């Protein structure tokens, strides 16, 4: 039960991450390789507040969201000026900068040693230390992030995002300020990823820079692509596959050291096969190979 609960919590956290990245990459077509950086910023915000005595979950979520949004606006302001591959490279660079800061600002972040001893979250004064309470917290946030994703996807705002994903020139010529849409959706995605980081910090009780590397950003992007870009369920399915498959590898009796490498190989092969056989992902509609 404990193990299943652990897997369910990880799936929940990745659903939050995947749904937020779905907004940015799936609906708006911004292939961001910096999602793990915002995830990390949220995790460190919650961790540093908690070890200094602020472990109220709503306060941590708000702080992570606001910081993620503000940084998202800042990074977006710099990066949405460029498009496609250049945008991916610019966001990739931001992720490198964040990891470097986390590693080197030892007096704040603990450097490579990270932040340990994060206390259990408290919800309006009540400690949520049990697995059940953590599950409830994670899935409440996952539901809220899915609701946000759903609202945006079904709204006229989402319609402009879908238009922008395919042809910015068309959207511009219809009088829509493309930069406003790119900035707001990028910042919203960043803020929700930061909230996922907050959940991660409270669950794992330890954060260090290795969990928020560029590799993690690429992994997040790959689960959204595998699930289906631009599909509401794509993020959920991608997150489930992304967490459950590596866990299932444990039952093959492979040495623990090999499981991590196998995960990389499996995702690499899955991505290649997906691009060849089903470019729109498992349940997606939008194809990356737009002509």
């Amino acid at each position, binding site marked *: 039960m404990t193990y299943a609960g652990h897997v369910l919590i990880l799936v929940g956290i990745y659903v939050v991450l995947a749904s937020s990245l779905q907004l940015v990459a799936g609906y708006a077509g911004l292939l961001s390789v910096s999602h793990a950086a915002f995830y990390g910023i949220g995790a460190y915000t919650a961790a540093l507040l908690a070890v200094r005595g602020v472990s109220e979950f709503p306060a941590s979520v708000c702080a992570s969201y606001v910081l993620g949004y503000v940084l998202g606006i800042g990074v977006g302001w710099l990066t949405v000026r460029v498009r496609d591959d250049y945008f991916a490279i610019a966001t990739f660079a931001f992720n490198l900068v964040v990891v470097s800061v986390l590693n080197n600002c030892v007096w704040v972040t603990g450097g490579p040693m990270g932040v340990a001893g994060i206390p259990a979250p408290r919800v309006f004064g009540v400690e949520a230390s049990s697995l059940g309470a953590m599950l409830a917290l994670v899935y409440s946030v996952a539901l809220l992030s899915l609701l946000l994703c759903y609202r945006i996807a079904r709204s006229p*705002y989402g*319609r402009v995002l*879908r238009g922008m994903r395919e042809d910015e*020139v068309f959207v*511009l010529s219809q*009088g829509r300020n493309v930069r406003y849409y790119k900035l707001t959706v990028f910042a919203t995605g960043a803020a929700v990823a930061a909230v996922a980081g907050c959940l991660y910090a409270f669950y794992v009780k330890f954060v260090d820079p290795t969990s928020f590397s560029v590799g993690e950003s690429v992994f997040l992007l790959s689960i959204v692509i595998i699930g289906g870009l631009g599909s509401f369920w794509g993020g959920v399915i991608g997150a489930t596959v992304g967490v459950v498959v590596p866990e299932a590898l444990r039952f093959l009796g492979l040495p623990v050291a090999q499981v991590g490498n196998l995960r990389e190989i499996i995702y690499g092969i899955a991505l290649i096969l997906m691009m060849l056989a089903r470019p729109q992902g498992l349940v997606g509609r939008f194809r990356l190979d737009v002509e």
Partner: protein
Amino acid sequence: MALRCMDLYKSFGQVQALAGLWIEFQPGVTAIVGPNGAGKTTLLNVLTGFLKPDRGRCLVGARDITGLSPDRIARMGIARTFQDLRLITQVSVLENVLLAMPPERGERLFWALFGGGRAASEDRAREEARNLLRSVGVEQKASSLAGEISYGQQKLLSLACCIASCASIVLLDEPVAGLDVVVASQVMNILRRLGSDGKVTVFIEHDISAVRCVADVVVVMDEGRIVAQGRPEEVLTRPEIAEVYLA
């Protein structure tokens, strides 16, 4: 409301695409003709903000629009189509028209999240979009993906998008190129209707019969300048014009 270009210059390296161009487009249908490389599409791109002129000014009424961004110019009531037919091919025909309608409140992030259920304005917009599609003859394709309808229907859809924007100035780049006789005549009827509704309707065209059929005024461009302007029956019969354009 007239659209004016005053002393426009635009060059690409050594190529002078616009060379001191002066023109005023009045309500009604104006056709721009001229050989390839005459600067016709460059003029449309400058007027809609996709290119910045090296010199000169563009005015809508008394308002200077030179150098404004394409989205700002579009919001000021200038709609356009493109030679390479730009549509959102992976969304429905209806959604393309909805995207072209004047921006609504639900297009802001805050209202998208906290605006309650589907607004009545959204239902009204859908109804209007359907009526518009009916008026251009592609209503039966409203739910199809824009990329899955025929080329002719895509041309009609791009015109529907221009009409949906409620723009007072419509600039069209080769609207009848590549169309069969039936669809071409549908397009020409729409152009006439736009002109008679008092909109400034400017279209670039190589098909002289379409120009004769629809245009109130024809403008002949060559080497970035206006070489002739007037009623089609006067301008297109001049020998020097036939030499420049029909050679």
